């Protein structure tokens, strides 16, 4: 009888010990690597997280394209924007590491799909569509990266040990890699796809037009721009008549835009949306030069800024960018750009005036903007007009700095804007954390940083 308690004690211990559940609880909201890819649907869900990275690329790309140049100035408290604005970027700049990080976070997902999809049972159509979109997304991210940082490490696997010491490729190699991704995507993504929230055949061509423009391959640039403008029998994209409609979501001329919803921008999160930076905090405001240029433009394109005297104090000119509403999408490609790309390609090929010329392309856009039409007289006059046209038409869409660099005009324009501009500002620094943690990048920092 004395041992009754001992026995029941032991029974208790044993019954609990069998509860190994206690040591192996199931996580919620998390799945392990091997559970991720099962079928077409799960592959699509994984691909969507690459679109999430695209969404994270939206704001930093606008910052890079406009704040590094002469369109925007800093007016707030964050060091990272102040540095870019004063052309005093340090390698530890938060915007640089955010943009860099997104490129490779997306790259990992694309590699994961490329490695995993062949092993699962999935219809060929879905396979092509998903890998095609994935290749496009990677091409776009690397494109932005290559012109922001220069040659990039090219990551094509999920092997952590390999990728943590991967060296930088040259700019040429990086651009070739982008081209191969684009050609793959062009081949795989079917023609009949119209959703401007996702990578479509039109989006691939639009990026190719931009890609060849940047690479100064004028015939290819013109070719792809024309394909997008003319469409495949049917015109897929139609110019809006009113510039005001251009800046709203899903306009008829939108080729690809990053779709945001209220869930993306609660406004109190630390990952500030572009609206919060421009309007909520007024962390970044238009430069006085940009304001003047927009006012002098004369047409309807100055609707993207607004003045409020209450803000005008000290260095603050009182102007606010109202281009992006609280949950507005960010347009990556729209038809107007195809016309201006073609105009530039045609000017470079000395097709200056007349029908189907640089002049006619530019005037389509100027007419819509309500500004006086121009006459093409010379290649140089036309190129100068195009530079100005791009600044007006695409202000606060993240193009300006890239345009000035690729056309070699940066030094002339920027020296006029600020005395702080130096040659180093033609590229952003490779993030310090990459240099520190990747031995192959030890001596690979961009000059001047």
């Amino acid at each position, binding site marked *: 009888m004395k041992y009754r*308690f*001992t026995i029941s*004690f032991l029974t*208790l*211990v044993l019954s609990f010990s069998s*509860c190994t*559940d*206690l*040591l192996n*609880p199931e*996580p*919620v*909201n*998390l799945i*392990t*690597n091997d*559970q*991720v890819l099962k079928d077409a649907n799960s592959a699509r*869900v*994984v691909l969507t*997280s690459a*679109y*999430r990275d695209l969404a994270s690329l939206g704001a930093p790309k606008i910052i890079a394209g406009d704040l590094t140049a002469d369109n925007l100035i800093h007016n707030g408290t964050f*060091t990272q924007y102040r540095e870019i604005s004063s052309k005093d970027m*340090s390698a*530890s700049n*938060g915007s640089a590491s955010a943009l860099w990080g997104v490129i*490779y*976070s997306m790259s*990992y*997902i694309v590699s*994961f799909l490329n490695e995993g999809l062949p092993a699962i049972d999935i219809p060929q159509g879905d396979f092509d569509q998903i890998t095609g979109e994935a290749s496009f997304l990677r091409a776009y991210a690397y494109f932005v990266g290559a012109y922001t940082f220069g040659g990039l*490490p090219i*990551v094509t696997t999920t092997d*952590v040990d390999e990728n*943590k010491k*991967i060296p930088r490729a040259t700019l040429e190699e990086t651009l070739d890699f982008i081209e191969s991704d684009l050609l793959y995507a062009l081949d795989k993504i079917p023609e009949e796809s119209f*959703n401007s*929230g996702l990578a479509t055949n039109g989006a691939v061509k639009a990026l190719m037009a931009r890609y060849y423009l940047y690479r100064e391959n004028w015939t290819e640039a013109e070719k792809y721009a024309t394909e997008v403008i003319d469409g495949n029998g049917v015109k897929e994209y139609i110019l809006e008549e009113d510039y005001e409609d251009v800046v709203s979501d899903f306009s008829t001329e939108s080729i690809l835009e990053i779709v945001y919803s209220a869930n993306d*921008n*609660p*406004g*109190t999160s630390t990952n500030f949306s572009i*609206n*919060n930076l421009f*309007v*909520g*905090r007024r962390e970044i405001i238009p430069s006085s030069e940009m304001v003047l240029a927009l006012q002098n433009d004369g047409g309807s394109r100055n609707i993207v800024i607004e003045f409020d005297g*209450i803000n*005008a*104090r*000290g*260095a603050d000119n009182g102007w606010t960018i109202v281009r992006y*509403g*609280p949950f507005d999408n960010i347009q990556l490609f729209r038809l107007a750009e195809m016309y201006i790309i073609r105009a530039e390609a045609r000017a470079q090929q000395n097709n200056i005036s007349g029908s189907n010329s640089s002049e006619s392309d530019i005037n389509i856009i100027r007419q819509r903007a309500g500004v006086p039409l121009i006459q093409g007289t010379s290649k140089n006059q036309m190129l100068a007009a195009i530079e100005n046209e791009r600044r007006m038409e695409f202000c606060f869409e993240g193009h300006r700095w890239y345009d000035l660099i690729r056309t070699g005009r940066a030094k002339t324009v920027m020296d006029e804007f600020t005395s702080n501009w130096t040659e180093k500002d033609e590229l952003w620094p490779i993030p310090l*954390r*990459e240099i520190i*943690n*990747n031995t192959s*990048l030890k001596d690979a920092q961009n000059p001047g940083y």
Partner: protein
Amino acid sequence: MNKNLLSLFSCLFFMSVLVQAQDNEVQISGKIIDSDGAPIPGVNIYIQNTSTGTISEFDGNYNLTIPENSQIVVFSYIGFLTIEEPINNRSVINITMTEDTKQLEELIVTGYSSQSKADVIGSISSLDPAVIKDMPITGLDQALQGQVSGVSVTQSSGTPGGGIMVRVRGNSSISSSNRPLYIVDGIPVRDGGLSTRSFGGQNDNALSTINPNDIESIEILKDASAKAIYGSRAANGVVIITTKRGKAGAPTTFNIDVQRGIIDPTNTIEVLNAKELLALQREAMINAGEDPDGAGIPGVTDAVDTKWQEEVMRQAIVQQYQLSTRGGSEKTQFYLSGAYREEEGVMLNNDFKRATLVANIDHKATSRLSFGLNVNLARTKNNRVKGDNFLDGVYNAALTSLPYYQPYDEEGNLFAPGDAGYAGFPNFNPVGQAIEPRFDTYATKMLGGLYAKYEIIPNLYFTTKFNMDYTSTIEDQFEPSTSAIGGFLQSVGQQGYGIYSTTESSTLLNNNVLTYNTSIGDVHSIGGLLGTEFISRTSRSGSTVGILFPSDDFTYLTSSGLILDGSSFLINSGLISFFGEVNYKYKSKYLAKVTARYDGSSRFGEDRKFGFFPAFSLGWRVTEEDFLQGISWLDDFKIRASYGLTGNERIGNFQYLATWGATTAYNGIPAVGPATLGNPNLGWEQTTEMDIGTDIAFYAGRIQVVFDYYYNVTNDLLLSEALPFTTGFGSVLGNLGEVTNEGVEFTLTTVNIDKELNWTSQFNISRNKNIIQQLATDEPQFSGYSTFTNNTHIVSPGKPLGTFWGLKYLGVDPGTGDAIYYDKNNDGKLTADDGTFIGDAQPDFFGGFTNTFSYKGFDASLFFQFSYGNEMINFGNTTLLNSGEDIENNQSREALKRWQKEGDIASIPKYEFGNTFNNRFSSRFVEDASYLRLKNLTIGYSLNGEILSKLRLNKLRIYASGTNIWTLTNYTGADPEVNSLDGSTTAQGLDLYTFPQVRTILFGLNLGF
């Protein structure tokens, strides 16, 4: 300590019943009583130098069969002086035992058992709650401040119910929790914050749900010998709290405690008035070569001169009412208590309310079986206000708000964000930010347990416990359109912003412990325990955010036009443990103890699921040696040493798995993205601890000294190994780093005068030297707030945690008025590479000094608390003393010491609008934050015997108590005892507009009948 437990533990000394065969035996019997005539059960009775013995019955009677020629019978009982009585052929021997007044015989709760203080060879500090009972203490963690050596306690701010940082023997972890394990009545209780939202760095505090006035004793386990029984959870120290229980055979008593007092801030920051600020701003403009009028700065006027700090602060009230009763028969004892506390914050709209209920019941069913329960219920409501690193906070905005604006317009309405007539972003009306939003946190706590204890064979006990700690938190928040978030941010819709979130956490625990104690003669004592424990933890949470409310009259999400950010979540975790302990004592002289615990945790990786945590300790009571017997003034002299391993299991859940998780949907399509890289070897952080200490008592216990030296090495620290982003991940977790803590602790307790006037003192002082030995890589990590040179704090090998990083400020150039910084790399330029070590938050030493006096009915106590050598980043001054970098903020009066004209020898650089150079983060913002504080002064008076009995009372005491009444410090911020990033280990010693400690003056009444 109640008698029930005393009698239980007297059995530790019960001899094995080995009756030797003897030819002639006789019987002796008798009754054992104490000096009051009450019977003493459980007295250990044996014949000297034999193993023949017994223990006294419940009524104090005993019977013992002894050999006829026996000479001396020994009576011993914990807390009483041992009696060696010659038998002289008597058959009835009645004994009156007298209590041993030496404190050495106190029982110390050591975790799963308890032990006589004389036999303790681990480092355990006890805190008598009597010393804190008159103070307006909200939570039990606050009670530890300045009272216990080796334990550093910092209140993060003066906000009621706010976060408190407790560190036992330093910081042993870099990335995981450094909070000690709190065990209340055997239940590991939730610590840290209750709310899921940190308000600009400040948290609330889960331990504020336990009423300190219900606590009977607090023990802090500090070395491996004491802690190893808690294995993988013990590395940060263990705080064992025992609540009050009933007393056997004592008359039922009732106690009424009332406290009521007023609260004021200890300090305010002197800022500029309107005239001074406007003049300064105009000067800054002129220095920048700009026209002040063109820049929109009003002319110098004091037409409006708002004292913003006064606008958001008030004199607050604290009150607490408690009714408790305790008593019981020999079989059943109880303690019941109900209390209500209401503590207003000094900031408008900030207060903390708590209702608590405690019921503890013990019952002895048979001579072998006893059982009982303890229940602790609490409900708290905390009205929080935003602060610190929130632009839309209250106290911070009151410091920085421009004095030439006012909170109300001409019609008496509060200015809302964006209103004409009020400063634009980043300024928000602090009065509106205090009054308009609703940040209510409701917590419900249920702490309960059942136990049963059974004596299987004499001296072998089996105890089983089923315990639960349940905490539910509801956060009910609304920021109307008249507030910053709800009304200003376009992205939020400018029509209100509401959050409703709930969190529920529970810990279910079962433990089963066998204890056995025996003595072999009076030479060898052996005791030990063996146990298992199962802990299942669950945390469930949900949160919903709504925007676009029809108007500010509709403040609940039901009315919101758009619901977003809905979430729900569940985490389970568990711990399975086996533990044991063996104590050995040889002739009360030599003591040894071996402890071990084997823990399996769901948080550990597949390849490292179980950890083993052993400890060994030795003690030598030198006073028991013959060569010290002649020295009558030396009561006790004990030397002890311990060595062992402990762990830190709080490394997060599922960190070892390679996982993918759902991310926000894109374009209406759900998304699953990579979450973490896995590491199947991920395990606990392990601390190897060594301690050498001594306990000395002289002159009948009037002088007591405790001294300890320790050296702890914590390795396998959980750290993120930074990965280049090219891997697709920012980092992977591993057990990588190493930190050491080395220190000395000294406590001196004296009875200075013991006459009609009684004066006792307790002084304790501690030093802890914390050094980071190793990180994941040679590269330092950064923490805190971002600065020109990376961040305010650096985690660097060779330095302590909480080390500051920035430029070294060399002063002001008298010629130009510009700041001069140390050009570390001598390249002629000032860049981020010139960052250097500019101080740290670790004190050289800290401690407390308490004096208590009593004379006739009067009593008084004076409690000083100090910290020396710790530095603080006055980070608020990067805005409040910003050399004109911007003109959006008011400036501290220190700005009047700025450089103004060539030749000025000044400590503050010139004010020049837009000049960031002069305001770069540097040692200019690092200050000595040493302080000596009169933490508490209490004066009381108790009525004496005759009047009391006429009033049919047994106690009536009134008292006045002041807290934080005087502070000596060179720190120029509001308070040297704050931390803007509550709970942060790497970013300690940061003051970013942190609300200072408060001064409380209260009156109290204790009534007993």
